[in-house]
């Protein structure tokens, strides 16, 4: 029997005050132990979807649910069950990696972590030990990204939202990130990842959804996409394109 969805959008729509329809009747579900990649260009509605799951905005129609909790009805309960890593992780520059990690772990409602637990989480992301007690001020984007993922690990939430997590990472960091993502999936986390990196999406996702102008225009599992050129599929579904073969 299928597990209950951990991250779920049901007829989710968002129309801004200026009349722009950012999201149009979006529905999908991410189950525990599954990575769902939302592919799409700029303005496709990926970040709007994440914002709705974090209750930074409220839907015009439909529901965003985390572990069955409607985010705009009980945002605090929903947020306690979700971890979030942004495209460009920004932490407190005057704090060390350990201090940032400790603060955000406690902010998630978890008890104060031990230094050993913090070290383990940072090492798991691949952040070298000598950087653990350094201030974030001098960290590269990749190092900050690792800290962001460590925060998600420490929160130990059943749902993880990743907004363009591999954007700007060098190939090795990108590879390490995908390996980590897979290990989180293996632990039973439900992961929703927005990206426009087709290669990483194909590599890590169990399900891929293609979004265009606020609508989910394609959704297939990794198995269904096996043997297909994802780039070609993507271009076929983007409005105004007839695919590479055309």
């Amino acid at each position: 029997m299928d597990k209950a969805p951990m991250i779920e959008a049901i007829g989710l729509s968002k129309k801004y005050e200026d009349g722009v329809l950012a999201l149009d009747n979006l529905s999908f579900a991410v189950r525990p132990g599954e990575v769902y990649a939302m592919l799409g260009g700029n303005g496709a509605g990926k970040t709007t979807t994440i914002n709705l799951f974090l209750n930074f905005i409220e839907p015009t129609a439909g529901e965003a649910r985390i572990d069955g909790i409607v985010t705009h009805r009980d945002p605090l309960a929903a947020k306690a069950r979700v971890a979030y890593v942004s495209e460009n992780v920004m932490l407190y520059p005057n704090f060390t990696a350990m201090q940032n990690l400790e603060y955000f772990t406690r902010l998630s409602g978890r008890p104060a972590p031990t230094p050993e637990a913090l070290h383990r989480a940072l090492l798991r992301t691949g952040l070298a030990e000598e950087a653990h007690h350094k201030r974030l001020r001098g960290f590269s984007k990749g190092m900050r990204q690792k800290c962001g993922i460590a925060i998600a690990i420490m929160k130990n939430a059943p749902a993880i939202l990743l907004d363009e997590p591999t954007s700007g990472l060098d190939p090795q960091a990108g590879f390490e990130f995908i390996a980590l993502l897979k290990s989180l999936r293996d632990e039973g986390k439900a992961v929703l990842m927005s990206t426009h990196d087709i290669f990483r999406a194909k590599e890590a996702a169990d399900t891929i959804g293609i979004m265009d102008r606020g609508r989910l225009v394609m959704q297939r599992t990794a198995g269904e996409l096996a043997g297909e050129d994802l780039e070609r599929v993507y271009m076929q579904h983007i409005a105004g394109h007839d695919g590479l073969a055309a």
Partner: protein
Amino acid sequence: MLKLVIQKELRDILTSTKFIVSFVSCALLILLAFAMGAAGYRADVARVEAARRENLKQMEGLTDWMMVRNNRIFLTPQPLASLVAGVSDDIGRTMEVRGRGEMPQEDTRYGEEPVFAMFRFLDLEFIFQTVLSLFAIVFAFDAVSGEKERGTLRLSFANPLPRATFMAGKLAGSFLALAVPLLVPILIGCAVFTLMGVPLTTDEWMRLALIIGSGLLYFGAFLALGIAVSAMTRSSSTSFLALLVIWIFAVLIIPRSAILIAGRAVDVPSLDDINAKKFRYAEQLFAEDRAAMNAFSPADRSDPRKMIEEFQKFMGNINDARQKKMDEFSSRLNEERANAQGVQSSVALGIARISPATCFTLAASALAGTSLALQDRYIAQARAYQVSFAKFILGKTGINPGGGMVFRMRIGDGEQEKPIDTHELPAFEYRRPVLADVLPAALPDAGVLAACVFLFFAVAHVAFRRYDLR
């Protein structure tokens, strides 16, 4: 969770370079204010003591108390005035007591040292009012908008963090991180004050503590205002600009404009006008008396001593009557002017009180005993002294002093006249107000400052409830 946000705010502020630079600058200024205040107080005490000695020295050698015509009294320096100058440098510190009539105030500090009037003094009130309010703004302008720009706001609210908790943590954390460290240089300053030999009574220590408390409320008001503006703007540069404009209006424009508006709205007769009226009335009275003097004819012309005594009595009565009329006329003019001034200052302060800077200045100067009430208190005490001085001279000579020319004739009996003992002269010591005297005046303004903290925090809270966290 509130404790966690407060701890984060404390750590974030205390480990920033901005805090270290700003704190060191403010701490040095505070210490400088205490040290300069103590040095200024000691110099003032020495100056007044020297002036008192000189006053008595000028009387030495006189053989008749009627000849004591230049008895000067001095406003005793107050230790707290060296920290919150208020109007103490603007009012005349010396008065000449003749025994009756008006006692013009002379010798203002700024009159004596006009260069200081150009830029005023660097006292504790100035540091709180101007420097620390800016210090609060520098740390509050990006409290919310800066977190949004840095991206930490988004990450924070991806957690089950209530907005009200975040906002309360921001205000409490910022206040603790910025205000509590300021207490360190203030306490060191108090120690410097004591070590430099400035004697503060228990009552004055309590008043100083309340001045500092008012300063911290004022600081908290600007901090809450900064956070509120930051929660209403999307970028920290907009927030800073808005706060700078508000600060300029609150600290520099509103208090001055209020005085100008009140000056236009309420007409107060000038001192020149009043003095001219008094002069004309005095001339009129003297002309009337001159006719009576011309008509004076002693009843007994055989005895010169009796003749002089009769003339003296006649002159004394005329002088007394003239002075009484003059006093009544003067006090009526003075009262009219004081009433107009009272209305003017009520209008001015009423307008100016919309600025927390005015409320702090009024609360601090009231507590220090250097508010506008200082002048009235000094004059009231000087008048009371004049009465006791007049009684003393009357007791010594049998004649009311200060009534104009007095003829004294001594028929040679060969006896050597003894010089007067100047130590017998009643001493004037300005009685400083105590806490119970100043508290009623200071409490309303301190209350307004506390209300400002709550109001601005409420505004910040409401603004942040609608803040776009994306």
